[in-house]
């Protein structure tokens, strides 16, 4: 798994993909930071992090679209699968490489709170809690992207499919206030990827949301492994 992880991490930066993703994310999150904090003179960074969720929703398929689809298309999966690696090792290696690039990008955005600290005195634990929530929801987005990448041989289809899945989750979230049946509303609220970020945004660490995001990611990674094995048989 480590070999696959290292190779994939390097691949992001040997091709333009890693740079394009990081540039796009930093540009859009920078616009959000400028509009939400600098121009309005507000020190509340977690609202910016909340906007960054939507930025990552748009940019995350760039990270995941080629991970498994390209291997299948170029038949390089024959090398990986006949060398003794299991599908689990391959999927996890690729997932963690995307997660690693995401983590590096998150680290780069720390320049925004640093600017806020230079101009005022924002609440550090609140910001760290927000970052934790943002990282967890980002993990969930990446797992969805990996899953869609396991379903197809075409990178573009994988990217569009990942957008589709994430938009579906967003749409379900937007439907919640309009649902009149309380039990359906409760279920949607429980499953909502986006609403579960709220506790982190407002400074409280939520065990249930953390467990939810980890379980959500694990489930989509398990689906990815099953999809890969099903496609081979």
């Amino acid at each position, binding site marked *: 798994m480590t070999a696959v992880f290292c190779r994939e991490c390097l691949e992001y930066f040997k091709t333009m993909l890693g740079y394009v993703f990081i540039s796009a994310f930093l540009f859009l999150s920078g616009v959000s930071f400028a509009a939400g904090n600098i121009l309005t003179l507000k020190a509340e960074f977690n609202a910016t992090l909340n906007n960054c969720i939507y930025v990552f929703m748009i940019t995350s398929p760039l990270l995941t679209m080629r991970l498994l689809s390209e291997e299948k298309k170029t038949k390089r999966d*024959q*090398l990986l699968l006949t060398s*003794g690696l299991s599908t689990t090792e391959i999927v996890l290696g690729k997932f963690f490489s995307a997660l690693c690039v995401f983590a590096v990008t998150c680290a780069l955005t720390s320049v925004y709170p640093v600017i806020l600290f230079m101009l005022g005195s924002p609440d550090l634990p609140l910001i760290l809690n927000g970052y934790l929530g943002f990282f967890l929801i980002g993990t969930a987005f990446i797992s969805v992207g990996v899953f869609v990448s396991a379903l197809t041989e075409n990178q573009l289809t994988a990217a569009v499919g990942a957008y589709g899945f994430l938009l579906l989750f967003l749409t379900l979230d937007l439907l919640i206030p309009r649902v009149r049946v309380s039990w359906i509303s409760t279920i949607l609220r429980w499953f909502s990827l986006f609403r579960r970020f709220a506790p982190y945004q407002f400074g409280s660490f939520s065990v249930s949301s953390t467990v939810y995001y980890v379980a959500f990611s694990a489930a989509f990674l398990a689906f990815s492994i099953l999809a890969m094995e099903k496609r081979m048989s």
Partner: protein
Amino acid sequence: MSSIAMDAPLIQLDGVSKFYGKKQALRDISLTVGKGEIVGLLGRNGAGKSTMLNVLTGYLPVSEGRVSIGGADMAEKPREAKRHIGYLPELPPLYDSMTAMEYLRFVAKIKRMKDADIEGEAGRICGEVGLLDVRNRLLRNLSKGYRQRAGVAQAMLGRPDILILDEPTAGLDPKQIVEIRSLIHNFGLGRTVLISSHILSEIAEICERILILREGELVNDCKIGEIGASLGEIGKLRVRAACEEDECERILRNVAEISSLRFIGVEEAGSSDWEIGYDRGGADVRPAIFDALAEAGGKLLMMKPVEADIEDIFLRMTASEERHET
């Protein structure tokens, strides 16, 4: 690489079948390949060669039956079984953004070689396959010949007991073909090599044993020497008749002794040339051809024997249900 009893088969297939949905790609294949054998796998397109190699290497699971490599069951102990195999698929599985050395280091890692051995082994293989001069160049910038060498190198990495090569010389120029063959030959000394190829002369040159697949079925498993004997069983004639192609084909198809018929071309105006195959063990086909043409009002302008080659054996074995080849 590992200790395997000398007499134990390295590759063993018991009643292996493979289905893609309702289509059966492999039909009840059973065979064993021992240590040190160099085996050629032949078959027409769609005969199931690549499926068989994919099943052997554990890339595809079998639908029925059992694959055992080096004594380890592929379904139960895939990692142990795959440890014995070096595999070059039809399309070399290369990462274009890596250099040849980086690629070999990566393959060594996923093959779980010891860290201390990786650098030396990658360098040694680079030297053996002739990649030393280009070892620090990106794979995307290498010629097809070098890319194929890189593919062969990754298969040979770690000195596996079994080398499985799918069309290893496809698309190479004659010089590169000779070099790759030489590599395979040198590596194969004392090891088991299984090669799939559509170049029959290549198989005849490299391999000691031939497996022939037809529609997923193993129709022949013989030594090269036996193929030589089979060559003696096939008779071939070159015939020129003074009639047009369609008319001549109609006449010759009615000759029961002919086992294969192939139109060659028109060498003289108003005539057609044919290559006719027949079984030497049967009745003499020449009077029958003469009589058939004479009765239909055609004239025989030429009839001479031609030497049969391995291609004829291949056609005969892969298309034995088709009496006439056109």
